[in-house]
């Protein structure tokens, strides 16, 4: 057992936190999987519009790595395939047939080696649930990871409280971890906020990590930076907590159950709450009556790293929450002279009486983009042993060697999202880190 105490960082006090009491159930009519969400894949469709499909059947595969196929998230009919620019596949929408979905034959398997687990996941089309670091992409089954990490400690603003949403899933989490252990010769880390997921203590093959401190302390990148840094050519596999449950069910009974709990939160939601739904569910089905009557931005994921989407769209494959904030085009007169109060939020002591109450953030950038002035703002919220300023400059200069040396492999957008949040120059630090990763990946 290890303990990590993070000091640098910031818990954004944003309004609209979901109540942790009950979970209502909602049944979406359609689900979708969106190939553009997965970094660096070249999707090739295996189905066409109008075709019936059963849950778990392959729906597309990656031309770069044909053994990895994506499962259909529901039984039903492929209603529509949406294409974007240059024929990028935006959505593969399935209308759910709940009746036919009930029929699934369960079987028990006992997997005892890495090969067996990999083959099981590939056969069942469940491999895309495993992601890898660096690059934040679907793992490659041919590679062997140095270690595996699952973080139940979700410190993101309005992030899903996994201690609540996965409270009844002990059995499947255990089963999932047990089988994933075969995949690596190294350690399997499970990160938690203190005194949660006690049952993990009994799993002797798991290295439990207590994390303490403000966001981004629960992020995989930050935890790895402290316990097991990613060096050049290292590969670490990660899996989202909600996906661990799905895999656990598949390992236990051989069935597909893509039910998951989604956290609907943010200042644009009337009754922020937890909803039991399913992966890739239609957002309209989830929250149409719960939104305030205003111009809104709907985000699949959390407010720092989520994807800007719309009500007709679908929740992202890796996301466990929907955040809704208000759009604002308000232009106060001489706003930079504003004394402070309830209408401002800042991690700097630059306003009077701010940050006391949960703040209703809007889509305003709160300032124009300017040249970078390093007033130590990023460093205050970036708890990794990396010179982020130098790293960003090396990316902007396109210096591959320097990026590697400065530790770009340890970073991901989510780890630096707070840097973008606080940056007075309104620099898109997360975007720059992704640009650097893309440059390196595409150069390979």
């Amino acid at each position, binding site marked *: 057992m290890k303990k990590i105490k993070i000091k640098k960082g910031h818990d954004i006090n944003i309004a609209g936190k979901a109540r942790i009491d009950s979970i209502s159930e909602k049944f979406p009519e359609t689900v979708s999987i969106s190939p553009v969400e997965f970094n660096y894949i070249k999707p090739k469709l295996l189905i066409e519009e109008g075709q019936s499909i059963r849950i778990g059947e392959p729906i597309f595969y990656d031309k770069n790595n044909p053994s990895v196929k994506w499962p259909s998230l529901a039984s039903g009919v492929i209603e529509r395939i949406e294409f974007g620019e240059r024929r990028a596949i935006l959505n593969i929408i399935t209308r759910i047939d709940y009746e036919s979905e009930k029929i699934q034959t369960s079987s028990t398997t006992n997997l005892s080696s890495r090969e067996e687990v990999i083959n099981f996941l590939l056969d069942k089309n469940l491999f895309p649930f495993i992601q890898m670091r660096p690059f934040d992409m679907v793992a490659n089954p041919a590679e062997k990871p140095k270690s595996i990490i699952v973080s139940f400690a979700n410190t993101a603003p309005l992030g899903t409280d996994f201690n609540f949403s996965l409270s009844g899933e002990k059995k499947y989490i255990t089963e999932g971890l047990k089988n994933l252990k075969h995949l690596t010769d190294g350690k399997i880390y499970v990160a938690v906020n203190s005194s949660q997921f006690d049952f993990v203590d009994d799993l002797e093959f798991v290295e439990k990590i207590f994390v303490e401190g403000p966001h981004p302390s629960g992020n995989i990148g930050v935890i790895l930076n402290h316990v097991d840094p990613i060096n050049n050519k290292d590969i670490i596999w990660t899996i989202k907590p909600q996906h661990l449950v799905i895999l656990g069910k598949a390992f236990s009974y051989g069935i597909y159950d893509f039910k998951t709990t989604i956290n609907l939160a943010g200042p644009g939601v009337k009754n922020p709450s937890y909803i039991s739904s399913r992966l890739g569910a239609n957002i309209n089905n989830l929250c149409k009556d719960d939104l305030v009557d205003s111009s809104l931005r709907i985000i699949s994921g959390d407010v*720092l790293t989520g994807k800007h989407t719309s009500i007709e769209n679908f929740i992202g494959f890796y996301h466990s929450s929907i955040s809704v904030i208000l759009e604002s085009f308000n232009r106060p007169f001489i706003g930079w002279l504003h004394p402070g109060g309830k209408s401002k939020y800042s991690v700097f002591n*630059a306003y009077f009486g701010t940050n006391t109450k949960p703040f209703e953030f809007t889509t305003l950038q709160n300032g124009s983009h300017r*040249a970078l002035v390093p007033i*130590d703002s990023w460093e205050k919220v970036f708890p990794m*042993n990396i010179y982020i*300023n130098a790293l960003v400059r090396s990316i902007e200069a396109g210096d591959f060697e320097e990026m590697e040396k400065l530790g770009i492999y340890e970073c991901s957008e989510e780890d630096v*999202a707070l840097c*973008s949040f606080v940056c007075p120059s309104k620099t898109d630090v*997360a975007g720059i880190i992704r640009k650097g990763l893309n440059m390196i990946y595409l150069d390979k």
Partner: protein
Amino acid sequence: MKFLKNIFEKTGKLVEKGKPLSWAYPIWEAADTIFFSTDSQTKSGPHIRDNMDIKRTMFFVVIALIPCYIFGAYNIGYLYSNALNIDSSFIPSFLFGLKYVLPILITTFVAGAICELSFAIIRKHEVNEGFLVSCALIPLTLPPTVPLWQVFIGTAFGIIIGKEIFGGVGTNIFNPALTARAFMYFAFPTKMSGDKIWAIGVDGYSAATALSVPANPKNYDTASNLFSNITQFDFSNMNLFWGLIPGSIGETNKLLIILGGLFLIYCGIASWRIMLSSIVGLILTATILNLLAPFSTNAMLTITPLQHLLIGSFLFGIVFMATEPVTSSHTNRGRWIYGFFIGFLTVIIRSINPAYPEGVMLAILIMNMFAPLIDYYIIQSNIKMRLGRNA
């Protein structure tokens, strides 16, 4: 308000992309966002942003300087009325000083704005509010008697050579305000040093600063009478602290500088590491020189660390100049080293070369030059640590 908004909306259409006036967009954007906060939207994640921006950051530095301006103007009037033995109460003295400070201030802003805006147009970069800080700093480092054409040329030099030729804010090496001052110091020495320029008085009125005294050794041999044998001013530590003495416009009152520094530290804008380590560097070096003083005939070695802290522009320099984020070290460990050497070099320049009255300006410029090198070695140690892990 609506009227203003309409003006900006109409003029905004003229500078849109593709329109003949599109080259003026950076200027329009800067002016527009001064009056009305921008409605720029977040695009991808993070979808929410902090309310702090560069405008406010730079504005806060200017706020921290305002007390220095007020006191500076008052001090000019105070010294004048003292020389003439007339009423030296606050308001008349302040108004008298304002007559000297305001033209200098306006000149710097005009020169600064011309340079910044034309470069924004030519180089197609955003107008960075940082130039307001540079322009607000320059007058405070000048003697009140400085000719305005020199101020204009100096400011232009500082903004262009100190900043724009390196690519503008964010990539400059030297502090533009200090570059301007250094240029003026070396280009117009008669108007920037000596004992005739630091106070307004009758013709030929002599008002030496504490630092220019030792430069003209007459009959002192120890520190105790170093400052006491001077014309009409008493450079006791108390007087040096309260600042009713000749000097550059903004540097004399140490209390206001310290308050300004604390304000910037509290807001998270200026680096306390640089300020603290500069003071440590200065005290250590001065102490060592004190110990060496008996072996030397140089009376400057006998100046105590406290006197070093209070005389000249040291505090002003480390609070407002050395902490300039772009030209100082970018790493926290680097900031300690950078600051320490500013303190060290200030004392060394002051003491070893007493013919040169003030060391802090050159100390900061020299360390500006070395800041990237310091960062380089700090970052190399991080890289070595990472490479070591790979091995």
